């Protein structure tokens, strides 16, 4: 035991080894409860029959010894010491009926319970770690196959979407950008409408090209569209039995005329 305390570790260690049955290695303990549990084992009895009084005395001796050895004890060790000193006095003195609070026996019982519970958890953790463990005792599938996700898309729309879409379509006329394209196309319905009216006047064979509406003969695209539609419409009228159609040769002009009856 040096006066200077420049190297307390070495000194305390040798002192401890020499002088003490109880090895006070505070670093090795996890708090006062741990120390108490270690001390309680020296009583060599079931934890349920432990003498808390004896344990309190042992602990106080331990703290005293640590102090002698100039070991820096954390505050909670000292708090426990103070509490145990109090508990000891309670256990030794006859109960004072005027005293408030739990009796010494109750406090002692609770401490015994805490020790027993800690011991139980220690045993439980040991048993847990002794179990077969994955990757050590049993193994998972070595060649695992990933489940590939197959994406399936479902489509959805609400009634509002539908109404908005329709409203959009119906109001498009005012600003629709594709109107020009459509103007160059004649639909079959348009041609048919026109022909139905005109065929009644075709008593003679007439080139179908003469039925092209005004203004549709110039622009090649419009002309093509009008010719095709008019021809298709002519065929339709023939099918309906309202007209006859003829062509004298390949690429020759196509004529139609009204068919009566």
């Amino acid at each position, binding site marked *: 035991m040096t006066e200077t305390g420049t190297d307390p570790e070495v000194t305390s260690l040798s002192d401890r080894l020499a002088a003490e049955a109880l090895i006070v290695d505070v670093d090795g303990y996890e708090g006062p409860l741990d120390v108490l549990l270690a001390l309680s084992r020296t009583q060599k009895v079931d934890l349920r029959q432990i003498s808390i009084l004896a344990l309190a005395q042992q602990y106080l001796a331990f703290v005293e010894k640590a102090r002698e050895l100039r070991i820096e004890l954390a505050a909670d060790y000292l708090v426990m010491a103070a509490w145990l000193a109090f508990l000891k006095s309670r256990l030794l003195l006859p109960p004072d009926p005027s005293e408030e609070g739990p009796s010494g026996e109750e406090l002692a019982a609770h401490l015994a319970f805490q020790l027993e519970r800690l011991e139980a958890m220690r045993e439980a953790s040991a048993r847990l770690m002794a179990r077969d463990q994955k990757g050590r005792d049993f*193994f*998972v*599938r*070595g*060649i695992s*196959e*990933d*489940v*590939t*996700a*197959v*994406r*399936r*898309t*479902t*489509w*959805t*729309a*609400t*009634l509002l*979407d*539908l*109404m*908005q*879409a*329709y*409203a*959009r*379509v*119906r*109001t*498009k*006329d*005012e600003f*629709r950008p*594709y*109107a020009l394209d*459509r103007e160059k196309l004649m*639909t*079959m*319905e348009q041609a*048919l409408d026109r022909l139905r009216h005109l065929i009644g006047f075709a008593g003679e064979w007439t080139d179908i090209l003469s039925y092209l509406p005004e203004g549709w003969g110039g622009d090649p695209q419009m002309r093509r569209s009008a010719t095709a539609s008019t021809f*298709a*419409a002519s*065929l*339709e009228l023939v*099918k309906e039995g309202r007209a006859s159609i003829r062509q004298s040769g390949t690429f020759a002009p196509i004529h139609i005329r009204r068919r009566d009856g």
Partner: protein
Amino acid sequence: MAEDQDRTEEPVNESLFEAPPMGEQERMVEAILFASAEPVSIREMAGRMPHGSEPAEAVANLRRRYEGRGVNVVRVGEAWAIRTAPDLGFLMKKEVVETRKLSRAAIETLAIVAYHQPVTRAEIEEIRGVSVSRGTIDQLLELEWIRLGRRKMTPGRPVTFIVTPAFLDHFGLETARDLPGLKDLRAAGLLDNRPPPGEGEPEEDDRQEEMFGAAPPEPDEAPEE
């Protein structure tokens, strides 16, 4: 165990060590093949198993045991592995359903079919002012929201499209007639107050009644997919 690896196949060992029973060896091979990340050769198995084991025989037994099961013992080059039975590969796929909004083209086309049915493709294009792609129509057919109606009695007898009961179900409509009219749309602020020239209410005539009444079976049903 590792240091014995090279000697295991020598017959001498058989007399020195009692090999485990074949059933036990089969268990061992099973565990080894299951847990290994790579196919395992007979030699490697022998290296891990107790002396005198016959992994080749154990593998052969195990292979028979797994015949017709959900996984099979298969040979991969010089080694062995446990693999999913080929016919069960589909189980390794998980379907992820993703819900997406219909494209603008699709919803507009659908709206036109709903309001104008039966309607031809040419008419849809006429109303939308743009051509309708095959894909858009196909998508709506696939969703079973539209189907083919009767052919139209006009030149070329074009097919028409009509909406389906699934469509009505999805949009919570009892009949297509329950679709809000242009007046309603206008009242809801969805339409400009000025009706475009020459555009009236969408026709809700008896054609529609036909479609949703006791409609006779259509000769040209949409292909069910």
